């Protein structure tokens, strides 16, 4: 079931900035999309508007082509999974999951046996079969989240919406669960949208990533597309570690520190004027002797962890800046990375964006 959002705007109180600022979004049936952005960018508000838990000031929401803007949440057929699970504490796992079926009007309500069977099926799907009689307070965070998911899935929703579903769990559990969610999605093919501020999560799991900032969509696309062609310095920064080098565009090249003129990578056009050259830590090459197109920099700090050598360098053209590089752990020897040693670093892969601030 596709989701279409058109011209959506939501403001909390007069005079406040818009939480969602004229957003247009289109998601195809079966897509698994991530709304990614820093706190306060409007991603949760957008999700809640799609769910019907908030009403927009202007704009429309369509689910499977049907205009649901004025339809209340309980009639939209959305499954919503909350950040803190929102399980009904006074009900058992089975009762929680069965809830959406039990509250149906008599006409569409399944029989008690049918309900029990559906509940059992979906609990097996989330690998919690045998937990029917337990209560939420007896479950771990990861288990509670799976119950919340089961509860949302049992009503066979048209779309599945998840609000920072793994936010309250520790890193290990988070990684496991998001893989598992991806597998689940591959099995069920329900259009799913989840909200997160963790780019690793989004990149790992989603088909399509929508990066939001201050209520607007900065860029939307596959992980690959966002990696290959980020639309702005913000997106580049948000999707991974990013070194920002102030530069000037002139004659179609990027002049850094007055000494280094970089030819643009294929397909990129560099406009005249102040720009930022953004380079990821692993996209530098390092040389101990003079090299073409390289910046001179002095080593400030060197650490090895995660199998990588991480260097902190101060470039000669502006010692107040810090460059962060990630290299293979054995790329340089101890003397070369001692504090104060001089290295030549060349950005191999980079993006130029007009400077906004």
């Amino acid at each position, binding site marked *: 079931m596709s989701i279409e959002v058109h011209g959506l705007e939501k403001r909390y109180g007069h005079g406040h900035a818009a939480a969602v600022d004229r957003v247009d979004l289109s998601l195809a049936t079966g897509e698994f999309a991530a709304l990614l952005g820093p706190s306060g960018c409007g991603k949760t508000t957008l999700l809640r508007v799609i769910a*019907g*838990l*908030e*009403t927009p000031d202007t704009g429309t929401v369509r689910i499977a082509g049907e205009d649901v803007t004025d339809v*209340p*949440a309980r009639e939209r057929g959305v499954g919503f999974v909350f950040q803190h699970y929102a399980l009904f504490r006074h009900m058992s796992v089975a009762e929680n999951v069965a809830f959406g079926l039990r509250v149906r009007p008599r006409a569409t309500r399944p029989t008690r046996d049918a309900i029990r069977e559906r509940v059992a099926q979906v609990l097996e799907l989330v690998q919690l079969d045998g937990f029917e009689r337990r209560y939420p307070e007896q479950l771990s965070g990861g288990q509670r989240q799976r119950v919340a998911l089961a509860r949302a899935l049992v009503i066979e929703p048209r779309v599945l919406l998840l609000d920072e579903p793994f936010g309250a769990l520790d890193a290990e559990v988070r990684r496991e669960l998001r893989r598992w969610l991806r597998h689940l999605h591959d099995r069920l093919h329900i259009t799913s949208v989840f909200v997160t501020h963790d780019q690793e999560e989004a990149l790992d799991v989603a088909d399509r990533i929508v990066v939001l900032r201050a209520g607007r969509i900065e860029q939307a696309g596959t992980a690959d597309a966002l990696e290959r062609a980020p639309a702005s310095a913000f997106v580049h920064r948000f999707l991974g570690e990013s070194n920002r080098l102030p530069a000037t565009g002139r004659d179609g090249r990027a002049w850094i520190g007055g000494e280094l003129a970089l030819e643009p990578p294929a397909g990129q056009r560099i406009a005249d004027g102040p720009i930022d050259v953004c380079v990821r830590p692993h996209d530098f090459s390092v040389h101990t002797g003079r090299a073409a197109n390289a910046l001179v920099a002095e080593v400030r700090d060197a650490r090895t962890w995660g199998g990588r050598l991480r260097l902190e360098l101060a470039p000669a053209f502006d010692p107040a800046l810090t460059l962060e590089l990630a290299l293979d752990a054995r790329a340089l020897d101890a003397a070369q990375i001692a504090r104060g040693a001089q290295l030549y670093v060349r950005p191999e892969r980079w993006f130029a964006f007009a400077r906004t601030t």
Partner: protein
Amino acid sequence: MSAVAQRGAGRLLLIAAALVFVAVFLVAPLAIVFTTALSAGFGPYLAAIREREALAALQLTLTVAAIAVPANLVFGVAASWAIAKFEFPGRQALVTFIDLPFAVSPVISGLVYVLLFGAHGWFGPWLAEHEIRVIFAVPGIVLATTFVTFPFVARELIPLMQAQGRDDEEAATSLGAGGWQVFRRVTLPNVKWGLLYGVILCTARAMGEFGAVSVVSGHIRGKTNTLPLHVEILYNEYNAVAAFAVASLLALLALATLAVKTWVEHRAAADRVAAQGARP
């Protein structure tokens, strides 16, 4: 919020029902006290209040409160310190015990003192010998009032001090502060609103207590009548205006109590918000 709560008509209906209930059960009784008191005009109202026996009752009420409240205040502080900051066997039993006067009917609270100090009581003969009058005299009233208001301060402070834990006090002790200093400089500022609230409730109840005092007082006009008892006497004499006039004093006291309570809660909440902001 709007996804779930009643909209439109349902909401209005509920609010209206609540308002009707409040009007009948809370506002009307309060209002009728003042309207009846003033029904004959200001003159009789003031006369009733300034009447000799009424003033004597007022004085007695204030005296009793002035003794009972501080006594229970000291007790409340001591008890909550012992209970909230330490572990010892029987702690829960002690907490339940402190709640006892709450569960006891005021009449029984008075009765027990009659049994102790009345003419036929345990100490009756001894008191009679020494010409000390407790029952049907002021000391009895003080004792009964103290009994009834016994838990108020403690009940406020105990959960408050328990919730705040011992960290602050332990830090102070490790820095060399003695018992009193720890209490005065560390604990007291943290519980001041709860303490104030408890004292206010205690005072209001001490001044308004009726059942217990009625049993021990002997109803001697001008001598052993507190304000509430005086109200009863006037009412039983069908002197409605005077009865309600004196009652209006007590009602004003109640309103003042509510006002102070609201203010205290407001300040306590403000303090909480400030403290959260200051935490790193």
